[in-house]
C-alpha cells in the first residue's frame, strides 16, 4: 500500500523574499504543494494506474496549520484516496526534518493494524528550507530501505521489490530494494497532472483525518535555532563599453590579464 507524504510550502513559482527579521522567508505569499511532493503524489497515482488493484490505497499526509488541508485536497483531487492532517497551530514554528520523520513513523505504525504500509513516496526536499533529510531519516528510524532522488520507479509486487533509477553526478544509477521502502522523488520522475473538475468535486467527499502531534506521541518542538537567513548578494548591473580598447582597459582594471 503506497503512501505519499505531502507538505505545504511556498509556491515555487513565487519570488521569495527574506523576511525583515532575517529569520526565514516571507510567508505572506501564496502557498501550494511542495513541487517534489506533487511529483510523489503523481507517481503514486500512476503506480495504481499501472498496478490496478495491487495498490490497495493511497494515503497522503501533511503536517501544518489548518490551511494545510487545502494541499491535501489537491492531492486527493489528483487521485489519492484519503488524507491525514497532523495539525499544528498557525503560530507554531515549522517542524524540522527529524520531527517530521518521527511523526511519519508514528503514522506508519498506526497503519499497521489496517494492513500496513509498503511504500512511502515523498519529495526529495521541501523548497522552502531545502533540508532534504526527511526521507533518509524516516528510512533510518524505521529500519527500511531507501532509494533517494528517483527519476524512475518500477514496483514488482510479486517479488515485493522496487527498482529505482537515481540521478547522480554524470549519469544514472539503478538500485533495487525490498519493500517496504522509502523513495524520494527528483524533478524528472514525472510531470504532475492538472486536477480535473470532476476529481476536485470527488476530492471534497474523500476523508481527511485530523490528528495532533500529541495523538502520535511526537514532539515537534524545533531543536535548531535559526541564527540568520540572508539573501544572496544583489547582482551588480552590467556596463556597456564603446570600444574594444575600453573593454581591455576595464578588464585590466578588474585584474584580469591575458594568458601568455
Amino acid at each position, binding site marked *: 500500500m503506497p503512501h505519499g507524504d505531502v507538505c505545504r510550502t511556498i509556491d515555487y*513559482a513565487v519570488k521569495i523574499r527574506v523576511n525583515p527579521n532575517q529569520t526565514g522567508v516571507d510567508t505572506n505569499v501564496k502557498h501550494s504543494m511542495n513541487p517534489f511532493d506533487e511529483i510523489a503524489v503523481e507517481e503514486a497515482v500512476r503506480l495504481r494506474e499501472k498496478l490496478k488493484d495491487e495498490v490497495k490505497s493511497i494515503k497522503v499526509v501533511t503536517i501544518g496549520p489548518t490551511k494545510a488541508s487545502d494541499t491535501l485536497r489537491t492531492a486527493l483531487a489528483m487521485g489519492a484516496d484519503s488524507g491525514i492532517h497532523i495539525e499544528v497551530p498557525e503560530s507554531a514554528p515549522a517542524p524540522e526534518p527529524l520531527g517530521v520523520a518521527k511523526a511519519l513513523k508514528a503514522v506508519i505504525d498506526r497503519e499497521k493494524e489496517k494492513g500496513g504500509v509498503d511504500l512511502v513516496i515523498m519529495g526529495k526536499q521541501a523548497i522552502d528550507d531545502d533540508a532534504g533529510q526527511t526521507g533518509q531519516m524516516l528510512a533510518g528510524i524505521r529500519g527500511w530501505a531507501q532509494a533517494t532522488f528517483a527519476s524512475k520507479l518500477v514496483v514488482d509486487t510479486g517479488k515485493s521489490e522496487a527498482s529505482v533509477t537515481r540521478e547522480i553526478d554524470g549519469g544514472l544509477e539503478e538500485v533495487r530494494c525490498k519493500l517496504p521502502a522509502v523513495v524520494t522523488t527528483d524533478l524528472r520522475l514525472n510531470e504532475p*497532472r492538472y486536477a*480535473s*473538475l*470532476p476529481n*476536485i468535486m470527488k476530492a471534497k467527499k474523500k476523508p481527511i483525518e485530523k490528528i495532533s502531534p500529541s495523538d502520535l506521541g511526537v514532539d515537534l518542538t524545533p531543536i535548531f535555532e535559526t541564527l540568520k537567513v540572508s539573501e544572496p548578494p544583489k547582482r551588480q548591473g552590467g556596463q556597456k563599453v564603446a570600444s574594444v580598447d575600453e573593454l581591455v582597459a576595464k578588464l585590466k582594471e578588474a585584474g584580469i590579464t591575458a594568458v601568455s
Partner: protein
Amino acid sequence: MLASRQFARRLATRNRRWASSHAATPALNQVTEEDLAQFSKILSPQSILSTLGSNSVASSELEPFNNDWMGKYHGDSTTVLRPHTTKEVSEIVRYCNERRIGIVPQGGNTGLVGGSVPTGRGEVVVSLRSMNNVRHFDPVSGTLVADAGCVLQSLTDYLAPHNYIMPVEFGAKGSCMIGGNCSTNAGGVRLLRYGSLHGTVLGLEVVLPDGTILDQLNTLRKDNTGYDLKQLFIGAEGTLGIITGVSILTPPAPQASSNAVLALPSFDSLLPLFQRAKRELSEILSAFEYIDRGAYELSVRHGQGRGLSPEESEGAECFVLIETSGGRREHDEEKLSNLLEGLLSEDKPLINTGVLSQDATQFASIWGLREGITEAVSKEGKAYKYDISIPLSAFKEVVDATRERLREKGLLRPDAVKEVVGYGHIGDGNLHLNVVAAKYTPEIEAALEPFVYELVGKYKGSISAEHGLGVMKAHALHYSKNEVSIEWMRRIKSLFDPNGIMNPGKVLPPPDGTHEPSPENTGTARIA
C-alpha cells in the same frame, strides 16, 4: 436626413478633389550620407545604425528593424536611429520633415499588420528602445509615467513591489513597448477587466511631424478642458506623430487569481456559458477566452502550455479559459468552484469537464495554452491573421466559412493552407481568425481578401478589432469605416502631417481609392 445625405455627397466630391491633390504630394527622399552627417550632429555615434557612410554596418544588423517577427513584411531602410531623449526625437523629426524623409516609428516591432516595418519608401526607422526609463510613479493614485520604449514586462516588474499591475497584457509582453502599445491601441486579455487604452492612458508626450513636442503628459484622472488631443494618437499607429512618453493609470494588483480551462461539447454552449460566468462571477471575472479545437491542438502540439489529458479533451468542440482576479482567495475560489460545480451537475451540462489550476505553475501553464497560440501558429507555418470584431454568435460561422472558401478554391492541402483556426476574447467580441499556410502566396491571399473583409462587413463587424490597420489592412478600411469617416481621417492626417513623412503607407488607404498594391508591386522585397 436629407441635409446629411447632401453633406455626405458634397464630402464625397470634395474627397475626390482632395485626393488628387494628395496624390500630387512630393515623393519622399531617401537618406543620403549628407543626412547621416546631420543625424550625427543630433545623436551619439552609438545611436545611429546605417549601411551608409564611414561607420557603416552590415545590412544584416538592420534586419530586426526591417522585418517583422512573422517574416511577412520586409523593408529596406538603410538607417535606424535610436534616440535617448524626447529632444533628440524632436530634432530628428524636424530635420526629416524639412528634408521630406519618411519616418517609421518603431517600438518592440511585435505588431501583426506591418505597421512598424518600413515600406520601401526609403524611410528612416526611429527606434524608441533606448528611451526606457520610468519617469514617475505615484503609489497612491497608481499613475505611472514612463518613456515610450519601456518594455511592458519591465513595467510590470517595476510595479510589482508597489502592488500594482499594468492594465494591458499580451503574449508579446517581453518585447512589446508601452509607446507601441498606445500607438496601436493594443487590446489584449485584460481589456475585459480594465478597458481599452483610450480609458487608461491619462496623458501622452508626442513629437509632432514638424518636430514640435506636444506635452500632454498629465496625470489627472479627470480633465474636461476641450478637445482631448491625446486620443488621436492612441491607435494612430505612428501616422500623426511619435509617442515618446506615456502617463497611464495602473490598477491595484489582484490579491488572488485563479484560472480554469473548460472543455465544451459544442460551440452552442459558449454563449450560455459566458452569460452564466458573467452573472455568477461578476466582479471577479477577468478573462473569458475562446479557443477552438484547431487552435487548441496547435498550441498543445507546439508545447505552448500543458493541455488536458486525452480523455478529458475527447469530444470537445472548443475550449474556454476563464480567469478570476479578486481581493480574497477564499471568496473567489468559492465563487468559481460553485459555478463550475453547478455547471457539471446539470442535466444537460454546458461543459464536458475542465481543469482548475492548483498553483502558480499550473496557472501559468493554463495561460500558456492561450497566450502561446500566436507562437504555435508561427511555428506551424506562415500565418494570415485576421483580427476581427463580430457578433459572438458568428465566431464559428466565420471560421467555418473561411475554411470552406479555401476548400472550394482547392487550397486546403498540406502544401498550401494547413489549418484554419479561431480563438479570441469572448468578453470583447473579438475573434482571431488565423489561416496557417505552408508559405505566403498570392493565390491564398486572393482567396482570403477581400473575402474575409466582406464577411466581416456582412456582420457589420470591424476588420481590425485590436491589431490596427498597418500596411496589411489600410486598403480595406472602407469595410469598417464609411466615406465621411475616412475623409475626416484624411483631413486630420494632412493637418498634422502635410508632407506625409510620418509612417507613410500605413492606416489610410491610398488616395485614389484603389486597392493598395501588395508589397511585391511596391518594390518591397517579400520573401515567401
